[in-house]
């Protein structure tokens, strides 16, 4: 399992929201722009890749206790959303890259769509 800090460094991501959990281990990844799908499929300690930057992204990440959310294509949450991420302990990672590119890079780092079986 890879640490969030290594993903941030290798993918050159901008950290906003809460940066207190960068030593957290990422167990798997999920990508979708429909928040209802993320709510059903992403799980605790997943990294979620989406181009949505709406405040509900923070709500979903907090609800599911995700390791982080990678927000793609240069989309930037508003200040209120970032403040909420800080207060809820949600790590938001920003990048100008597309979701396709980010998922490819995560795969190259060994992050899969399902957690490894112990």
């Amino acid at each position: 399992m890879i640490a969030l800090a290594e993903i941030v460094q290798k993918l050159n991501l901008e950290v906003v929201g809460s940066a207190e959990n960068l030593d957290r281990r990422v167990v798997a990844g999920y990508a979708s722009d429909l928040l209802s799908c993320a709510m059903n499929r992403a799980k605790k300690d997943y990294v979620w890749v989406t181009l949505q930057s709406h405040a509900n992204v923070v709500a979903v990440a907090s609800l599911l206790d995700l390791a982080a959310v990678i927000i793609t294509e240069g989309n930037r949450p508003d200040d209120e959303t970032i403040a909420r991420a800080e207060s809820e302990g949600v790590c938001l990672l920003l990048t100008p890259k597309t979701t396709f590119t980010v998922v490819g890079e995560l795969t190259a780092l060994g992050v899969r769509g399902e957690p490894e079986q112990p």
Partner: protein
Amino acid sequence: MLRPILADLHIHTVLSACAEVEMIPPLIVRRACRLGLGLIAVTDHNACANAEAVIRAAEGTGLAVLPGMELQTREEVHLLCLFDTVEQSLAWQAEVWSLLPPLENREEFFGPQYVVDAEGQWVRTEGRLLAASADIALEQAIARVHALGGLAIPAHVDRPSFSLLANLGMVPANLGADALEVTARFQPEAGFAQWPELRGWPLVVDGDAHTLNDMQNRTLFKVAAPTVRELSLALRGAEGRKITVDWHPTKS
């Protein structure tokens, strides 16, 4: 004096590429009258150009028509934007069009977008792609519609696509909307069990009519007049105004 008015606040015309060619002003008005509707709203995708023609077609029938739009936001959430006057709706359209990508419609993929007159005669074909997202966040759009004096109602929230609940997972805190719309297929027992948060919202049932048969007569407003201000009071249950929804669809 308050009176009951049956309403369908979500009706497309032939300006929406996905609407059937029968969705022209005189047929919409005739169908609305047959359904006993006292109020309809014309809500084409990201556009308002046919609303005035429907208003004219309804003159003398007793049917009130609000000019409106079904906006597609940055999050790909559909939002009903309803106004009292054509001028307000066109001001909103100008704002929305400045936020839409400048793409050409391709009829072979999306279908044609017709502007028509009150008789349903062709006036022109809109060449701009209306089936796109405006670069505005949902909450911003609601605030702008309110600033222009309109009502803002997220559309068909129970649909699996282009809806508040599908795209944003849950109703955002501080949404600011006047009500939420559910589809004619919404079943209260199953729907409220799946989305308990809907119980706290005024709900309206509309047809999202792309054909004449889709039109619905299940949302009843008790208001003094079919205006934005009165509808707003009814949705809040204020000053004796109220809404009632017939949850059991009639076969028509």
